[in-house]
């Protein structure tokens, strides 16, 4: 790990300002992904700003009947929250499908959204990676791609976003609240928060330098049945090959978001619209532009089968 200076942030504004004044700085919250990457010298910040003391760890009702989740709410606390369990069950289910008990006790809401890909070529510093070293090339393309993306990818990058939580947040139309170094705040719909790689895969989110996530809000509950199904190589503590998050109403209308297949939680309006016509109709819209490799073509089929199983479970 490279040496760095360390500061405990005293306010949101001062943290954002410090981040914008220190070009090599990073915020640290749970640290479970950042420190792993720092040990491997994939992340090499020269200054860390510890934001844990900023009090952003509350879950509260919003005036329009929704929920405001502080950026520092731990995954464990979010999954265990009574309102989340009763009204946003998809979110609880996605959270407990991810990581381990130890990691969920540390990992935060904002950090989960901002975690980096687990593409093995991103992790292997001996190989080119456009995400790690912009312009160096993508060694995943033509490599071992079983775990990698099948849709939304580009000629520069075929990595996936690893989060389970973000898939649920996408289906629930979450909005990310931020504060910028000049003290202004803004709200970013989750659909616009994560970027597709295009030819700049190192730019992963809509955040500007020094901009800090302060909360994630959820609109008022939409009812329906909430199911999150994660398909993986072992029964627990593994990343998704594919995952399907579904909220479905009694009349068959609903929303579906998919994880493990794309650089961001994958949701398509036309697929939601097709849900009342069944899994195949929705899947056709979801995966219409898929560009799998021979190694990961199975993921495209697996999305259809998992969606069918989840719709079946919802009916049962």
């Amino acid at each position: 790990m490279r040496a760095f200076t360390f500061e405990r942030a005293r306010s949101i504004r001062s943290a954002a300002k410090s981040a914008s004044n220190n070009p090599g700085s990073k915020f640290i919250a749970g640290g479970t992904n950042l420190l792993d990457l720092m040990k491997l010298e994939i992340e090499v910040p020269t200054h860390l700003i510890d934001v844990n003391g900023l009090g952003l760890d509350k879950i509260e009702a919003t005036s329009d009947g929704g929920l405001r989740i502080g950026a520092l709410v731990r995954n464990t606390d979010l999954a265990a929250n009574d309102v989340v369990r009763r009204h946003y069950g998809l979110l609880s289910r996605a959270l407990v499908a991810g990581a381990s008990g130890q990691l969920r006790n540390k990992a935060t809401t904002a950090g989960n959204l901002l975690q980096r890909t687990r593409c093995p070529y991103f992790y292997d510093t001996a190989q080119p990676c456009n995400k790690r070293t912009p312009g160096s090339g993508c060694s995943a393309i033509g490599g071992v791609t079983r775990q990698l993306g099948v849709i939304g990818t580009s000629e520069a990058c075929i990595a996936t976003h690893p989060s389970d939580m973000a898939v649920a947040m996408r289906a629930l139309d979450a909005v990310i609240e931020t504060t910028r170094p000049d003290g202004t705040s803004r709200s970013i719909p989750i659909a616009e928060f994560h970027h597709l790689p295009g030819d700049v895969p190192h730019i992963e989110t809509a955040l500007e330098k020094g901009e800090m996530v302060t909360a994630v809000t959820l609109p008022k509950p939409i009812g329906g049945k909430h199911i999150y199904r994660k398909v993986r190589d072992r029964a627990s503590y593994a990343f998704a090959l594919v995952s399907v998050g579904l909220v479905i109403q009694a009349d068959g209308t609903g929303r579906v978001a998919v994880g493990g297949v794309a650089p961001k939680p994958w949701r398509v309006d036309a697929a939601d619209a097709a849900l009342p016509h069944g899994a195949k109709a929705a899947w056709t819209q979801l995966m219409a532009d898929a560009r799998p490799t021979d190694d990961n073509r199975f993921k495209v089929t697996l999305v259809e089968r998992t969606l069918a199983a989840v719709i079946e479970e919802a009916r049962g």
Partner: protein
Amino acid sequence: MQQSSNVSLNVNGTKHALELDNRTTLLDALREHLHLTGTKKGCDHGQCGACTVMVDGRRINSCLTLAVMHEGDEITTIEGYGRPGNLHPMQAAFVKHDGFQCGYCTPGQICSSIAVLQEIEADIPSHVTGDLTKKAKFTEAEIRERMSGNICRCGAYSNIVEAITEAARSRA
């Protein structure tokens, strides 16, 4: 600015004032600076659970957190749970059920096990919890799922589950 910081850690009830390189993980602070070598370094990347300790009553991977981020925190390591002749009930259950072979993962397994029972008691759901609106139960399936962040390469899992199950029963 400095690349080292002062931090005060409260470990197993004893306060320690340390000056540490900022890079020092909580795990390395415990092992290399405080010489509490019960906590083990396995993968050093949060994948194996050998470094599990309790911080302010919650289990975490001590390898994936910086010591300087724990100013004033209460840390409990395996040394804080029991000693030969005065074992914690979970330690005694591991001995009784032979919940280990080489023993390297055992301190992490035991810290994690103690936390698992507390987490079920505190109604924190898991991936195998059936109904989110009902309280989680002390079942074998719950124990196995919640222990998935602790790897045992000797494969003592079935005995570990038996040990935890007995400790769960004797709690009630």
